C-alpha cells in the first residue's frame, strides 16, 4: 500500500483509504465468521455478533473520518492520497488515466462524516431492528446477510464521496446502486403476490440505470473534451472549454442532471423511491433517506465548477428540484403508509437540496443535506420503531400463533407489513394513541417532525431557511414552489404525527404496542439530539459550514440571513402544523372513519393517494409499449425470423443428408463400382479433352 503521500507529520490524511477498507474488512469478517459468531451464545447475547461487527466497522470508519476532519481543520487545502493505479493507457488520441486516489477535502469529508456517523447509528439501531425483523419474517439466518450488505454499502458510498476522479466516483455510484437493489429486495420472496419486493428492487435498479446512463454519457463527454477524468484537471480546463464550445458544457451538465434525477429521485425518475420502502426500515433510513439519495446533490456540488459555467443548466436543475419538492410534498399529504409519507417527504426534501445546488447556493444545499440526514434518518428509524411496536403489540395478543403465522402463505405474501388479518403495521389508519405506549419513540419522533417542518430552533429551520433565502435572491420562480412545498411539508408531517401518536388506539395491536429495546432507542435519542442542534453547523452570521466548505467550493455566494423571510417561513410551518392539528388532532380519527381530508378534497385526494397516478402513466407510456416492443422482438423477430433462419438451415442439411445417406450402403462392391466409374470418368475426361 502506498501511503507515502501523507507527508505532514501529525496529520492523518494518509488514513483516507481506510474509510473504504474498514467497512470492507467488516464485510469480509461477517462473510467468513458472521454465522459462526452469531450462532454462539444463543439467542439472547451472542446472536447479534454480526451486527456488532458491522457497527464497529462503520464506527471505526467514522473515527477515521473525524481524524481526517481534524487534519483538514489544521490544513484546509486537503490532500490526495494515492492508493493504487487502476487504468493507465496511452494512445494516439491521448491517454486515459484513472487511479484509486482518495480526495480529502472539506466537501468529501463532510460527506464521509455524514455517511459514517449517521450510518453507524443506523447500524446500531439495526442490531435490534433486524433481530426482530428476521424472526418476524421467519428466516433468522438472514441476519448476517443484512449487515454484509450494509457494510458493503458504506464502503461503496465512501468510494463515491472520496473519489478523486469521475471514474472512481462512478464505481461508487454503481456500488451504492447495487446495495440499494440488494437491500430493497432483502425479503425478495415476499411482498405483493410473493414478488412485490423483488419487483420494487428491480424497478429501483432499472430506473437508476436510466440515470446512470446519463452519467456515463456525461463522463464520455468529459473525457472527450477535457482529455481527463481527474476532478482538478477537468475543472481547471472548464473555462476554456466553456469559451470554445458552450454547448459541450451544457450537454455534460444536463446529462449529469439525468443521473441526479435517477439517484436522487427527482422528477421524472423519482418513481423508484416510494417502492424502495419494501426494504427493511434501517435501509430506508440509511440508503433511501440519509446517504445514497443525496449522492446526486453531492455530484452537483462536486461539479460546481462546470455548473457555474452553464447558467442555463443551473436554471434547469433548480426548476427540477423546485418542481419535485412541491410535487412530492403534495403526494405525501395523501399517503397512509407511514413509510410512504416519509419516502415522498424525502423526495421533496431532496428537491430542496437539488434546487439549492442548482441555483448556486451550494452551501445551503450541503447544509440541508446534513441536517436532513439527521432528521430524516431519525424519522425513518422512529417509524421502524413504531412498526415493530405494532408488531409486538400483535404478538402480545396471540403469542402462541406467531410462529405458525410465519409459514402461512397468505402472511408471507403480505411481507413484514402484515401483523394480523386486516391490520397493517405500516398503515397509519391502524395506529393512533401510540404516544402513551411508546413514550421515547414519540418524543424523538416529535423532534424529528418539528425539525423537518422547520420550527425554530431545530436544525431544519436553519437549513431550509438558507435555501429559501438563496432561492429568493437567485430564482424567484423556484422560490414560490419551495415556499408552497415548505407549507405542505409542515402539514403532512403534522398529519402523520397526529395520526400515529394522537387520539386513541384504533386497533388491537396499536393498543398493545410495546416500546423498542434500548439498542434501538439510544440511536434515536442521539439522532434526535443531532436533529435539534444540527442547525448550529451553519448558524446565520457565524456560518461554520460555509467557511469550512469554501476551501473546496470556490463559487460560494455568501449566505445572507433575512429575518423577514425567516419569520414568513416559520409562520408557514406553524400554519401547516396548525392545519394538521385542526383536521387530525382536534377530533382524532376513529377506527374505520374516513380521512377528513378525503371528504374535503374529494377526487383530488384519491389522486394524491395514488401519487398523481404517475406510476400508471409511466406504465402506459413507457413500460407497456416497451414490453410490447420486447414481445414483438421475441416472437415475430426472434422466434419467427432469427430462429427460423437457424432451424431452416439445420432442416435443409438434414433433408439433403437423408438423400445422400442412401449412397452409403455398406456394400464394398458398390463402392468399388463407384471408384471404377470415377476412374473411368477421369480417364475419359483426359482423353477427350
Amino acid at each position, binding site marked *: 500500500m502506498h501511503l507515502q503521500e501523507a507527508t505532514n507529520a501529525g496529520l492523518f490524511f494518509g488514513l483516507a483509504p481506510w474509510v473504504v477498507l474498514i467497512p470492507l474488512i467488516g464485510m469480509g469478517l461477517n462473510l467468513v465468521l458472521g454465522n459462526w459468531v452469531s450462532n454462539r451464545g444463543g439467542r439472547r447475547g451472542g446472536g447479534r455478533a454480526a451486527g456488532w461487527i458491522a457497527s464497529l466497522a462503520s464506527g471505526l470508519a467514522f473515527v477515521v473520518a473525524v481524524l481526517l476532519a481534524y487534519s483538514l481543520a489544521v490544513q484546509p487545502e486537503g490532500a490526495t492520497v494515492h492508493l493504487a493505479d487502476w487504468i493507465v493507457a496511452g494512445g494516439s488520441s491521448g491517454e486515459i488515466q484513472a487511479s484509486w486516489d482518495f480526495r480529502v477535502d472539506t466537501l468529501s469529508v463532510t460527506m464521509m462524516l455524514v455517511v459514517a456517523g449517521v450510518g453507524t447509528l443506523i447500524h446500531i439501531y439495526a442490531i435490534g431492528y433486524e433481530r426482530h425483523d428476521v424472526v418476524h419474517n421467519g428466516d433468522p439466518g438472514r441476519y448476517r446477510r443484512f449487515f454484509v450488505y450494509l457494510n458493503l454499502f458504506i464502503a461503496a458510498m465512501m468510494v463515491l464521496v472520496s473519489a478523486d476522479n469521475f471514474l472512481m466516483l462512478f464505481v461508487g455510484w454503481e456500488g451504492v446502486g447495487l446495495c440499494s437493489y440488494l437491500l430493497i429486495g432483502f425479503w425478495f420472496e415476499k411482498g405483493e403476490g410473493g414478488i412485490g419486493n423483488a419487483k420494487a428492487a428491480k424497478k429501483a435498479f432499472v430506473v437508476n440505470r436510466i440515470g446512470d446512463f446519463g452519467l456515463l454519457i456525461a463522463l464520455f463527454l468529459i473525457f472527450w473534451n477535457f482529455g481527463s477524468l481527474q476532478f482538478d484537471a477537468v475543472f481547471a480546463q472548464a473555462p476554456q472549454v466553456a469559451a470554445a464550445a458552450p454547448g459541450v458544457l451544457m450537454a455534460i451538465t444536463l446529462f449529469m442532471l439525468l443521473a441526479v434525477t435517477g439517484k436522487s429521485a427527482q422528477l421524472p425518475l423519482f418513481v423508484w423511491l416510494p417502492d424502495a420502502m419494501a426494504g427493511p426500515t434501517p435501509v430506508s433510513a440509511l440508503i433511501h433517506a440519509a446517504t445514497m439519495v443525496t449522492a446526486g446533490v453531492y455530484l452537483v456540488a462536486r461539479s460546481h465548477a462546470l455548473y457555474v459555467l452553464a447558467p442555463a443548466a443551473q436554471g434547469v436543475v433548480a426548476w427540477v428540484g423546485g418542481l419535485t419538492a412541491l410535487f412530492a410534498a403534495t403526494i405525501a399529504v395523501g399517503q397512509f403508509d407511514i413509510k410512504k409519507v416519509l419516502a415522498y417527504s424525502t423526495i421533496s426534501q431532496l428537491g430542496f437540496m437539488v434546487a439549492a445546488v442548482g441555483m448556486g447556493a451550494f452551501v445551503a444545499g450541503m447544509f440541508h443535506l446534513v441536517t436532513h440526514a439527521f432528521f430524516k434518518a431519525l424519522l425513518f428509524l422512529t417509524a421502524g420503531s413504531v412498526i415493530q411496536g405494532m408488531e409486538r403489540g400483535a404478538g402480545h395478543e396471540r403469542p402462541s400463533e406467531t410462529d405458525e403465522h410465519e409459514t402461512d402463505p397468505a402472511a408471507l405474501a403480505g411481507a413484514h407489513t402484515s401483523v394480523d388479518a386486516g391490520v397493517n403495521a405500516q398503515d397509519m389508519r391502524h395506529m393512533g394513541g401510540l404516544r402513551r405506549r411508546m413514550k421515547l419513540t414519540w418524543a424523538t419522533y416529535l423532534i424529528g417532525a418539528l425539525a423537518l417542518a422547520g420550527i425554530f430552533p431545530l436544525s431544519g429551520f436553519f437549513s431550509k431557511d438558507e435555501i429559501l433565502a438563496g432561492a429568493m435572491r437567485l430564482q424567484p420562480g423556484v422560490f414560490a414552489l419551495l415556499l408552497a412545498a415548505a407549507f405542505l411539508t409542515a402539514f403532512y408531517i403534522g398529519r402523520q404525527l397526529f395520526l400515529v401518536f394522537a387520539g386513541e388506539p384504533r386497533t388491537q395491536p396499536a393498543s398493545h404496542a410495546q416500546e423498542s429495546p434500548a439498542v434501538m432507542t439510544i440511536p434515536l435519542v442521539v439522532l434526535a439530539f443531532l436533529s435539534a442542534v444540527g442547525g448550529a453547523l451553519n448558524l446565520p452570521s457565524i456560518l461554520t459550514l460555509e467557511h469550512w466548505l469554501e476551501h473546496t467550493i470556490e463559487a460560494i455566494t455568501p449566505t445572507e440571513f433575512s429575518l423577514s423571510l425567516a419569520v414568513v417561513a416559520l409562520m408557514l410551518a406553524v400554519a401547516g402544523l396548525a392545519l394538521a392539528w385542526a383536521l387530525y388532532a382536534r377530533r382524532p380519527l376513529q377506527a374505520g372513519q374516513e380521512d377528513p381530508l378525503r371528504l374535503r378534497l374529494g377526487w383530488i385526494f384519491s389522486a394524491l393517494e395514488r401519487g398523481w397516478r404517475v406510476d400508471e402513466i409511466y406504465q402506459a407510456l413507457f413500460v407497456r409499449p416497451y414490453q410490447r416492443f420486447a414481445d414483438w422482438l421475441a416472437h415475430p423477430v426472434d422466434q419467427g425470423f432469427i430462429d427460423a433462419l437457424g432451424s431452416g438451415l439445420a432442416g435443409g442439411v438434414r433433408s439433403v443428408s437423408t438423400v445422400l445417406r442412401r449412397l452409403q450402403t455398406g456394400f464394398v462392391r458398390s463402392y468399388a463400382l463407384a471408384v*471404377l466409374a470415377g476412374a473411368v470418368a477421369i480417364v475419359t475426361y483426359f482423353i477427350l479433352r
Partner: protein
Amino acid sequence: MVPLSYYLALSVILFTLGVIGVLVRRNAIVIFMSLELMFNAANLAFIAFALHYQTLSGQIFVFFVMTVAAAEVAVGLALIVAIFRTKGSIDVDQVSSLKG
C-alpha cells in the same frame, strides 16, 4: 516382333477381367485374386512399354509393384482371416456395417 498393340490389348483384357471379378464376385479370396489379375495387367503394360521404348525404368517399376503386391497380400489375407473369424464367412456382402 509382336507389336505393342497386342500386348496392350492383352493387358486391357486381363484388367477388365479383374475389374469384373472384383465387381461381381462375393468371395473375398476370389476378389483378391481378381485384384492380383489387375496388378499383373498393369505389369504387362509396363513391360510392354519398356520393351517398346528400350528403357529399364518400366521393368524396375514392375519389381516395385510386385513387392508392394506381396506386402498387400500379407495384409489382405490377414484381414480375410480376421473377417472369417468374426463373421464365420468371407462373403463381402456380409461385411456391410462398421459396427463389429
